């Protein structure tokens, strides 16, 4: 009667049940528990969205800085004080200030550089009559504008004679000029920097911001005046120079000159023995790349933690689901579902959950990144929206993998159930 069913062992392969069946079964059981499904994937959604948002902001900031670095030109070299080692970074209170104006003069004398400028920077109160503002006062030389190009809107910039004569003169950024003088012409008028009275000789055209500093709020004075009369130091924070030679050999030239100036005995050219550090724009680019890499690793580990937490949540819910559906599993096994068919059904449920979490997380991450970029762009000039595509793709892939890993244990538990005991379960 049933000769066609004689075969005892029918080799059907692992993926016998067609994917559409599995998919329908899994998705219908998920949609039956909508709010639970959504709560379950929330951890993964938030984790992935947050990482994309942070990566986007990080990469946009990095891009902005790199653009500004590029704007300054690749022939620019910075010299900063250093307490040895290979640390690098902005002037810090913990670093002994070792650079002097004479160092810049020695570089100039060598005739190897097109422009050399030494700078000292300090934030302090600036006032005109009743009007008082906090401003970044920058002691500069006449070469400053060829290092950091800007247009002079009114009057003139600081000249060599001003530096040599400790002239009490100042050049204002556009905004600080506006703040102190309103619509009046500031040229020839006097302002007070701390207790020192200086005369305004020029106003710079609008520059915007660089490295998150508003250049239009700055005040430039001769570096000599700044040292002796305003800040009270005989050092400078850094020296900048432009060269037409090969950058690396120019950097070496600078090192030899400064070692002679500082009486450093360092014939083996070991930069760790120097009390200064010489870096070019390409070094800055490299450092920014390293910072970006560290940021990415940091964010990736946060992502990994949140995905593990999310995955444990998935595992928990899947275990609850297996327990709740013990009878259903018993019935499926009784009507002929194999171990691997039950395994696949529950695994697919977990994967659908996390994949959905990944997709929603990516969408929210992209939307909030765009939103954040448009808000930041209105505050920070040149801010661009960067959505990290690799994070978008890996967000979905990783979420799916989390589903497989954390869904496996509950799925195996379901697949191992004994049909009789499962059917008897209350």
């Amino acid at each position, binding site marked *: *009667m*049933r000769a066609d*069913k*004689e075969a*005892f*062992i*029918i080799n*059907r392969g692992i993926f*016998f*049940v*067609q994917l*559409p*069946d599995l998919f329908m*079964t899994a998705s219908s059981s998920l949609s*039956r528990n909508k709010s639970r499904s959504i709560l379950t994937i929330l951890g993964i959604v938030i984790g992935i969205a947050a990482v994309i948002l942070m990566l986007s902001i990080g990469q946009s900031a990095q891009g902005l800085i790199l653009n500004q670095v590029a704007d300054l030109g690749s022939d620019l070299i910075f010299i900063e004080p250093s307490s040895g080692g290979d640390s690098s970074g902005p002037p810090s209170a913990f670093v002994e200030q070792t650079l002097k104006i004479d160092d810049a003069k020695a570089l100039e004398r060598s005739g190897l550089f097109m422009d050399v400028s030494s700078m000292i920077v300090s934030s302090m109160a600036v006032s005109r009559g009743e009007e008082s503002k906090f401003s970044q006062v920058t002691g500069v030389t006449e070469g400053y504008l060829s290092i950091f190009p800007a247009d002079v809107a009114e009057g003139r910039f600081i000249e060599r004679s001003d530096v040599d004569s400790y002239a009490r003169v100042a050049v204002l950024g556009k905004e600080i000029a506006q703040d102190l003088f309103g619509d009046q012409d500031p040229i020839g008028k006097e302002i007070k920097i701390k207790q020192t009275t200086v005369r305004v000789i020029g106003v710079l055209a609008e520059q915007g911001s660089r490295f998150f500093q508003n250049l239009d709020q700055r005040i430039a004075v001769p570096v000599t005046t700044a040292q002796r009369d305003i800040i009270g130091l005989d050092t400078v924070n850094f020296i900048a120079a432009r060269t037409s030679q090969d950058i690396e050999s120019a950097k070496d030239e600078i090192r030899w000159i400064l070692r002679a100036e500082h009486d450093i005995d360092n014939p083996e050219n070991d930069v760790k023995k120097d009390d200064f550090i010489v870096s070019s724009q390409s070094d800055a680019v490299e450092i920014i790349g390293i910072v970006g890499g560290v940021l990415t690793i940091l964010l990736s580990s946060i992502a990994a933690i949140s995905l593990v937490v999310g995955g444990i949540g998935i595992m928990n819910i899947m275990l609850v689901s297996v327990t709740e559906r013990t*009878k*259903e599993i*018993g*019935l*499926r*096994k*009784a*009507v*002929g*579902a*194999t*171990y691997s*068919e039950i395994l696949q059904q529950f695994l697919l449920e977990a994967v659908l959950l996390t994949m959905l979490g990944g997709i929603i997380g990516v969408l929210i991450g992209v939307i909030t990144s765009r939103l954040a970029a448009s808000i930041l762009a209105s505050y920070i000039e040149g801010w661009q929206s960067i959505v990290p595509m690799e994070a978008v793709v890996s967000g979905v892939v990783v979420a799916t993998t989390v589903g497989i890993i954390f869904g496996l244990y509950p799925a195996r538990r379901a697949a191992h159930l004994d*049909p*009789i005991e499962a*059917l008897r379960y209350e």
Partner: protein
Amino acid sequence: MSSSIPLIDLRDVKKQYINDGVATTVLHGVSFAIQEGEFVALMGPSGSGKSTLMHILGFLDRLTEGAYFFRGQDVSRLDDNALTAMRRDQVGFVFQAFHLLPKSSVIDNIMLPMMYVGVPRSERRKKAEQALDSVGLSHRTDHLSNQLSGGERQRVAIARALVNNPSLLFADEPTGNLDSKSGSDVLQLLQNLHTSGHTIIMVTHESEAAEHAERIIRIRDGLLVSDARDHARRQGSIYNK
């Protein structure tokens, strides 16, 4: 018929459960054969081992000792996947508690076993509708199964058990949860299925239910106590011990 290989051939089957190191012997050596086309009632008091026996016969459980030949082939030598394939391809089950998926429609419940047999999706609904029609519930196709009465649920369960054309239909106390009217409807349905050629093994402890079968096997405390066919019962020997 008796000359051919029996559908089921049980030889001195024993079943022992071991829980926490304590062994409980439920079947002490049961032997009988069932031919294709029979309608057998498996009777005995509660706890006598009827369900255990049915689970072994239906490939849901394994025997501890003895032999079970299905169409002449030794079932004890099948691995788990092969046993699953036997459940899927050879038998249909009807349970006392129906075991329908409560939040699924009647038609989805009936289509479920076809998923594992690999019936193409396009054919499933038609086959399920035919099965539903054969139990007289065409008008309930898209109801949720938990909206049905007990009698209707059990008929849906029968349709589900039949949908893959099994060699053998098992029913474990199919009327146990039903009122007498629905119960006799279900029994009538089983009898009609038998008349149209199905082999049926029904576990029951109710004599009225067993009346519908053409053969009654009685067990008590895991031992077979009688095995009587229709003609013997008509001769009045049916209530012999």
